[in-house]
């Protein structure tokens, strides 16, 4: 077993890239451990590894010559041919110049000649950054649309950001700012913000955040501040949970399409894998337990130890909600398989329309048993539209997870002046209420107009009730029913229509031709401009077909 310790090296980020030989080693050895650990017995623990190690030799020998085969994790092999890329990826030639370090098992520890070796993670991410998602964001940065200043610039529809109600926050500050950071009256308490503060957040702030979460969820649940751990954004919140709940080589089930950032947050530094649970347009992209069960069993067959399931509710990129029954079913599933549930509810306050949002916390509140496997991720980036302030929340019912997460916040805690400011802002519950209500109204109005605009162009959307985006079906406009066709259309939208949208393949959607359009950075008068631009592309596509 000592051998395995050396092999724990993380393979380069496999996001649509072929994993190297090192990856193959890991993918075999890790399942081995899964088997051993699952059985737990001393006898099995010593015999099985020996036997399997013997087979492993065969496996490796057979596979070494053919790196394309078998090396791909289940998660990546579901997406289409990785060699076909968008034309725009050619712009990123500068990134491909990096040489690959030989993976560690191939290197003799004593050889210190050759190129400077850095960690495997470096190569992973450098490659990851030529995904259409990143390319699009970069294009907007270089050439941003401005009605007067740059009317031909690229319009941003690829960033889930909400500017609709930001001026409410600004107004609040104008009135209340003098005390906000610096404490009451004239006495400036610099030592209360500059010195070391609890890394998992000030207790006062936890209390206000708990209150805000309840308010956002229309007081259906009350949150206990002592179950809160605060982090510098939801990104580290998810990573910390991933570090706490899974070892390198373990896996989480994640329904697709999912938020592209999960690949970074859940997998990158932790070495944890994601198993895709495909949702389909036929089910309106709702999660099916059958698919979940199938994914779980497949993972098990591959020897992967599944540690949990990660859901987003409201979902990103689709924007639909999980019903109360689905949540119960999920909980049953998790109980049966003895795994965790991470419920990402960062958009809970951005629901619009009539459908009811149900927090996982509410379900767990009513069920007395088994709360320990439930963890909620929240943040103020979306619901209060303050992504710059970096406030993320872990809300867990598991004391051990809370204890470990608190220690891990050393690496990513929130700056104290920002906490002080938000304490006073969120304590003003009248302001908070106005903000939430107004924000929902505005989101609803934009959503309705945007979807109507798309419909006129012959683009249908899945009905969604949350988030800043709609999930649009453009499969009728793609030249071939494949990821290649999808990326071609994406490229046209970016370069001809000059709108940056997120193609479904970035979210690992199993069906090609779906796109996420974020509308909350626009104003109402921008909508006709956007539609006109999209029409330019859809018209030519229709002519072609």
């Amino acid at each position: 077993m000592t051998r395995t310790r050396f092999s724990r090296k993380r393979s380069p980020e496999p996001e649509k890239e072929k994993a190297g030989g090192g990856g193959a080693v890991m993918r075999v050895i890790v399942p081995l451990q899964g088997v051993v650990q699952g059985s737990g017995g001393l006898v099995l623990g010593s015999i099985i590894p020996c036997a399997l190690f013997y087979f492993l030799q065969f496996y490796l020998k057979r596979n070494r010559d053919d790196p394309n085969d078998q090396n791909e994790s289940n998660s990546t092999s579901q997406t289409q041919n990785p060699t076909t890329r968008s034309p725009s990826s050619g712009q990123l030639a500068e990134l491909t110049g990096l040489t690959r370090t030989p993976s560690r098992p191939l290197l003799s520890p004593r050889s210190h000649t050759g190129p400077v070796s850095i960690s495997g993670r470096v190569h992973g991410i450098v490659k990851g950054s030529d995904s259409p998602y990143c390319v699009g964001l970069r294009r907007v940065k270089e050439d941003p649309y401005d009605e007067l200043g740059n009317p031909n610039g690229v319009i941003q529809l690829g960033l889930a950001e909400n500017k609709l109600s930001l001026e409410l926050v600004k107004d609040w500050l104008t009135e209340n700012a003098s005390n906000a950071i610096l404490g009451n009256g004239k006495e400036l308490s610099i030592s209360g913000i500059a010195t070391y503060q609890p890394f998992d957040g000030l207790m006062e702030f936890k209390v206000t955040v708990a209150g805000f979460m309840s308010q956002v969820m229309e007081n259906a649940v009350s949150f206990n501040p002592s179950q809160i751990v605060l982090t510098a954004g939801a990104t580290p919140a998810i990573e910390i949970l991933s570090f706490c709940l899974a070892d390198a080589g373990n896996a989480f089930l994640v329904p697709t399409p999912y938020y592209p950032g999960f690949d970074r947050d859940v997998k990158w530094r932790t070495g944890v894998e994601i198993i895709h649970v495909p949702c389909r347009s036929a089910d309106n992209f709702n999660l099916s337990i059958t698919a979940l069960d199938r994914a779980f069993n497949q993972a098990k067959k591959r020897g992967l130890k599944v540690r949990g399931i990660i859901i987003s509710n409201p979902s990103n990129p689709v924007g639909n909600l999980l019903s109360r029954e689905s949540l119960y079913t999920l909980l049953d599933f998790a109980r049966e398989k003895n795994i965790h549930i991470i419920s990402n509810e960062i958009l809970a306050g951005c629901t619009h329309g009539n459908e009811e949002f149900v927090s996982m916390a509410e379900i767990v509140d009513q069920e007395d048993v088994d709360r320990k496997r439930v963890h909620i991720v929240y943040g103020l980036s979306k619901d209060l539209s303050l992504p710059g302030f970096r406030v993320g929340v872990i809300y867990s019912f598991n004391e051990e997870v809370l204890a470990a997460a608190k220690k891990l916040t050393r690496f990513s805690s929130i700056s104290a002046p920002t906490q002080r400011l938000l304490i006073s802002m969120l304590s003003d519950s009248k302001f908070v209420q106005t903000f939430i209500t107004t924000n929902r109204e505005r989101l609803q109005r934009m959503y309705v107009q945007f979807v109507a605009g798309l419909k006129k162009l012959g683009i249908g959307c899945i009905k969604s009730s949350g988030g800043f985006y709609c999930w649009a079906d453009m499969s009728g406009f793609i030249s071939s029913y494949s990821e290649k066709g999808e990326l071609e259309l994406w490229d046209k939208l970016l370069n001809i229509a000059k709108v940056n949208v997120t193609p479904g393949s970035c979210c690992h959607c199993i069906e090609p031709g779906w796109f996420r359009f974020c509308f909350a950075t626009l104003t109402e008068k921008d909508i006709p401009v956007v539609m006109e631009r999209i029409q330019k592309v859809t018209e030519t596509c229709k002519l072609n077909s």
Partner: protein
Amino acid sequence: MEFTRKNNNRQLLSRIATNDGHGENSPYFDGWKAYDSNPFHLTQNPDGVIQMGLAENQLCFDLIKKWVLQNPEASICTAEGVDRFKDIAIFQDYHGLQEFREAVAKFMGRVGGNRVTFDPNRIVMSGGATGANETVMFCLADPGDAFLVPSPYYAGFARDLRWRTGLEIIPVHCKSSNNFRITRQALEEAYEKAQRLNKNVKGVIIANPSNPLGTVLDRDTMRSLVTFINDKKIHLVCDEIYAATVFSSPRFMSIAEIIQDMDCDKDLVHIVYSLSKDMGFPGFRVGIVYSFNDAVVNCARKMSSFGLVSSQTQFLLASMLSDEEFVENFLRQSSKRLAKRHRVFTKGLEQVGISCLKSNAGLFFWMDMRPLLKEQTFEGETELWRVIINEVKLNVSPGLSFNCCEPGWFRVCFANMDDETVEVALDRIRKFVLQGTENAAGAGNKCKRRQKNNLCLSISSSRLYEEGLMSPAHMISPHSPIPQSPLVRART
């Protein structure tokens, strides 16, 4: 089987969540707990424990406060600054605000005596120096790789460099006989030891100015370090977070300055910086990675998503640090006050015959208590430490927690308290030392009694980290359900 079932619940969590990688079971943190349960207050709790284990710089808060009041627009959260609010609130680019990066680069240059300029485009944000150190390790090494660290070293390194990265630390033992200098010979020895253990050494990490010694590295030592890492083709990470705390000569030299006129591979050199010590802003959580290696800059920048500094705080600091007049005055005042505080303390100790390692930087000094040890062992050191914390009621940190290879040294922090508290602390030490010399015999019995005190003390932590490297018996499967930290085993 029985065991597995009992631990079923724990088994649901990861190794990282259940092991002792956080390093909080060491005397360093035990001392903090003792302080937390009975904190000193001049009037309300005059018999409490005085915190001298926390390297915090509170000497110049009056200057900061004045500046913030004079520049209300800088903290966008005042009526004067609210116009910038909208841009700042939604700013989430992990590159950081341009003005923030420029201001930090300029400040780093200023702190290094303007002998070298730092490129704002290489400034990468991170969640404090803690996050910065971890980020660099994530970028440079894979699980199982090792870093050489001259000891005594910062107690938190055990956590920052190893916990989540899966790295190992191999100490480079520095000795009092040459004032804890880092010698080429010691480096070679450690490197060879690593080779024997079949460890893949990825680099050396040093703190300059040193924590816990409070000394700065001289040019020759740094040049020899650079030659060493260049010869071995391994990385050099310089933790320079105490750069501006140097209060007398010799001056601080950044590694950036040293490599300017050296023939070496700059891709191997990385700097970690922070505003927590130099400005006294640990609450702002600003850590910086500055690398000369493009791939590392690129990768670290992406990792900064895991520890971004709030844009509001970036904006505030950008305005503050670009105010040259303020920065000049602040740095001048700060080193003046640190010098004075250092003098008061060390002189006070000298009077009762306690000497300290000669130092000129940091928020602490390295106190030599060897004459007071009953026996020159780490047990003796721990025994003395127990007396100091329980009886003298000072939380100082024993050398063991910094992985010092000689017993009897203690780190004493002096910048996190006011002048009155300094007097109380000095008084307590004086009384203790005088009483100790008066009835040296009686002290032994007293110590015995103290041992029964319920203060949890994990005596052997740091030692065992190191031994854990050497003994193959410790290398069980990372996926084993058995809690496998050597710390846990040692205590059962």
